[in-house]
Every structure is written in C-alpha cells, then in structure tokens.
C-alpha cells in the first residue's frame, strides 16, 4: 500500500527534482574560467623547472656540479661547464632540460646542493613543437611566460 502510494504520488520523481533544484545554488559552481582566472595549485605541486638566479647580483646560483644530471632517472638534464682560469672555479655555460620526458619526480631539486634547480608551481608547459619542450638555460631562468588572452 505504501509502495503504491509512493508510485502514484510520484514521490521518487519529486525527490529527484528536489536534488537537482538544490544544486542550482551558485556556491556549488565548480567551473574555473581558466585563462581569465588562474587556478590555485597545491603548495607541493611540482611543475615547470626553474634555474634560480641570485636576486641581487643576477648571477646564476648553479655551481655546475652535475648532480642533478646524475640523479635524473630519465637522463634529461645536460649540464656543460667551463673552468674559469682566473677564479679557478667551474662556471655554468649551458643547461638543457627536456620537459617532454620529465616525470616531475623532483629528485633533481632534492639533489641540488645550492637550491638552484627548483620545480615551481607553473603548469603551462605546452608547446607547438617537440623542440620547444626542450628548455635552455635562458628559458629555465625566465620560466614559462604564458600568453595573456584576456585583459
């Protein structure tokens, strides 16, 4: 009898309608308007790599120790250096980082003894060519500069 009444009075259908009605509240809206509003990624997110430079002198922090290239499971970091005869120190010449093969494990930033290499929270790594995914020293120092489509 109870079941019959439920069917006749369309109780289940009305419950369903109530569920959808409640979801209209704007606070539930989940959509991000991506290029206009950038999403907040988590603090521990590992994204685009960056070679840090000294904030005052503008010189690179990298000492070209090659530890990051050695620890990288994908062997995607290539560091070349040159010995400066005057200061008798190794100086960084080129640093390439192939982001297309990177799995963002973060071992390189752990291995770095001077906190020069860092995986940042930038996530816009797309590129039109495979070559574009291989970042050189300048690109690593500047970080990705995504185009702004919206004023």
């Amino acid at each position, binding site marked *: 009898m109870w079941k019959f009444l439920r069917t006749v009075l369309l109780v289940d*259908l009305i419950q*369903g*309608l109530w*569920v*959808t*009605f409640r*979801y*209209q509240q*704007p606070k*539930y*809206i*989940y*959509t991000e*308007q991506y290029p206009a509003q950038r999403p907040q990624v988590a603090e521990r997110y590992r994204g685009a790599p960056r070679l840090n430079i000294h904030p005052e002198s503008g010189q690179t922090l990298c000492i070209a120790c090659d530890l990051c290239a050695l620890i990288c499971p994908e062997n995607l970091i290539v560091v070349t250096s040159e010995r400066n005869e005057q200061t008798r120190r190794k100086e960084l010449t080129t640093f390439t980082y192939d982001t297309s093969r990177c799995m963002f494990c973060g071992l390189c930033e752990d291995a770095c003894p001077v906190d020069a290499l860092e995986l940042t929270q930038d996530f816009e790594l797309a590129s039109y060519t495979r070559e574009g995914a291989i970042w050189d020293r300048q690109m690593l120092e500047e970080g990705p500069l995504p185009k702004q489509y919206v*004023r």
Partner: protein
Amino acid sequence: MNAVLDFPYLKPVLITLVIILVFPLVVGYIVLAERKVLADYQVRLGPMRVGPYGFLQPLADAVKLLIKEDIIPTASDRWIFWLAPVLSTVTGLTAFAVLPLSEWIYIADVNIGLLFILALSSVGILGLILGGWASNSHYSLLGALRSAAQMVSYEVAMGFALVSGLMVAGTLSMQGMVAAQQRLQIWFAFSNYGLMMIPFAVYAISAVAETNRAPFDLPEAESELVAGFHTEYSGFRWSLYMLAEYANMFVVSSIAVTLFLGGWLRPFPSVAWLAWLNFVVPAALFFLIGAGCAVGVKRYSDHRVFGGIMIVLTGAMFAAGASFLLPPVNARIIGLFWFLLKVAVILYCYIWYRGTFPRFRYDQLMRIGWRYMIPIAMGALIVNGFVMLWGQGGERVQ
C-alpha cells in the same frame, strides 16, 4: 489617419507583427535560459563569454546559424525537405493566433480556440514526419516514426485531460475559459474539490511528451539516433525546427495556463483585498532582477561595452518595475505579466525535468502512454463528470 485607426483588423495585425518579429528573439533567450539553468543543475557556468554572463549568446548563435552553408542531401526529396520545417514553424506560430495573452492583447477570440490549437499541433507532427522521410536517412526516418507514434499516443491522453477542463469551463474559446475562471472564482486546476488536479497532472506530463522534450525526447534521442528527424538539417532549416519546437512548448504551456491556471488572472482573483499583489509582485520581481544586474555592473566595471550593457539592463529592469507601480499603466499590462509569469514557470519546469530525468526507453514510453496516462485521463474525466453532476452543473463548482 482615422481610416487606418478605424480599420477593425489594426490591433490583430499589429499584435501578429509584434509576435512574429519578437518571438524568434524570445526563443533565443529561452534557449539561453535553458543552457544557463541546465548548467546550474550540473554545477557549471554555461555560456559566459559572449556579452556579460553570456547575455548576447543568442545573437551570436543566430548569426552563426544564418550564415551557415545550406546543405540539402543529394538523395533527399528536395521539395519535401524544403517544405517540412516550414510546415512545422507555420503551424507552431499560427497557434499564437488564439492565445489570450491578456484581457485585451490577443489576435482572435474564436469560439473553437482550443480545438484550433489541437488541430494545428496535429498538423505540426506532419512537419516532423515529412522532414524525417525526405532526409532519406535511417536515423531521420526512425526519429520521424517514433515522433509520429509518440505524439499520436500522447495526444489521446492530452485530449481526455483537456476535455475534463472543457467540461468545467463550458467553452472552447480561450478568452471564455479565463472568463469562466473569473466568474467561478477559482483556477480550474483546483476545481471540483481538487479532483481537477488529476487531469492537470496528466496534461502536464503528456504535454512534455507532445513537444518531444526530455525525458520523452525519443524522436531526437542523440545517443541512439544522432539527432532524430533533423539529423540531415543544418543552418537556417534546423533553426526553423528549433523555433517550431519552442513555439510548441510556449503554446502548450499557454493552454495549461489558460485552462488550468487562470490565464491572465492574478492569484486568488476573487479576493479583493489581495489586489496589492498586482503591484507588489511585478515590482518586486523586476527590482530583484535589477538588483542582480547591478551586481553585474560592478563586476564588469572595467569593461566598457559589457559594463554599458549591464547598466542599460539594470536601468531597463528598474524602469519596468517602476512602470508596474503606476496604476494606469499597471491596469493595461498586468494581465500580460501574470500570463507570461505563469508560462515562464511552466517553461522552467520543462527545463527542470530535462535536467533531472533520464530518457525513457521506447517501450516504457509507450507503456506509460497507453497503460497509465490514457486510463487515468479517462477515469478522471468520468469522476469529474459525476462530481459536476452532483454539484448540479458547472456553474456551482466549488
């Protein structure tokens, strides 16, 4: 000049022109409202990029549809392919001729008004069937066959539900129905000690099926039939089908409003001290929408065009609300307001059903139609008839 003003068909011709010119735009905004409301149900935003909050999306859609390449499949029957959407649209829009939009805003008040609309909606089905057949495509043909079977089935239930209403109203004239509700001082949905709720419910359900809307949108079930009867249509012809669908929705909702929900009468039309509803409800509604637009003005304050549009909208909403507070203006347009408000509520329900219920299987659809809807409608007709006899005729119905 006087000769023009004395022309007896001046008002009908003017109203016809206004409806034909304005209704495509209205359909555009119903579609926008549908997309926005569905987006809300699905915790999305919906159109947001064309105009503030997607407000100009219908215009962009219209331009896109109008400049699209007009494709007629080579294997199709060209003349019928051309005729079918025209037939659907013409019948859909002709039905507006007898809708009582207000006490004085109507094109014609014929004594067979409801019959006229039902006849036109039956011819409208022909547009769908011809379109599906002329496309010479399996999907279209299947969609057309389904729509024919579905509409014929549900028209029976809808007819019986309407007969119950006609019994209480005692007239087929659309204006006459509203007049009867004014005279008997009750909306017919609550008439006969509440028993008229049954035919009203049957009508509400079969109206959804009649207009091919979800959950009864079997004729255009996209997961099975691509797009059903309009699979092969594109551009302007497709938009004609769309226009016809929304015109039918509007007409069917208008019948529900006219016959069951008091037409252009305010709620509780017989209670004199509730006359303030005529002023407070429209003013409050428009002021509320205006306040919402004002929030948009703030949001788009750094964008010159969008901000300007929002300012104009806000101004228009507050002006509309204020105009309802002037007694002479109010007296002229309050009927239209109540009618359109009720139709809008029913159209919202259409979207609500679409956002909630999954589509029926075809055998379920037929079973609901033939085994539940039609017997319930016939039973309700008999019961309501006996109740009216017992209450000694339609004139003294509680």
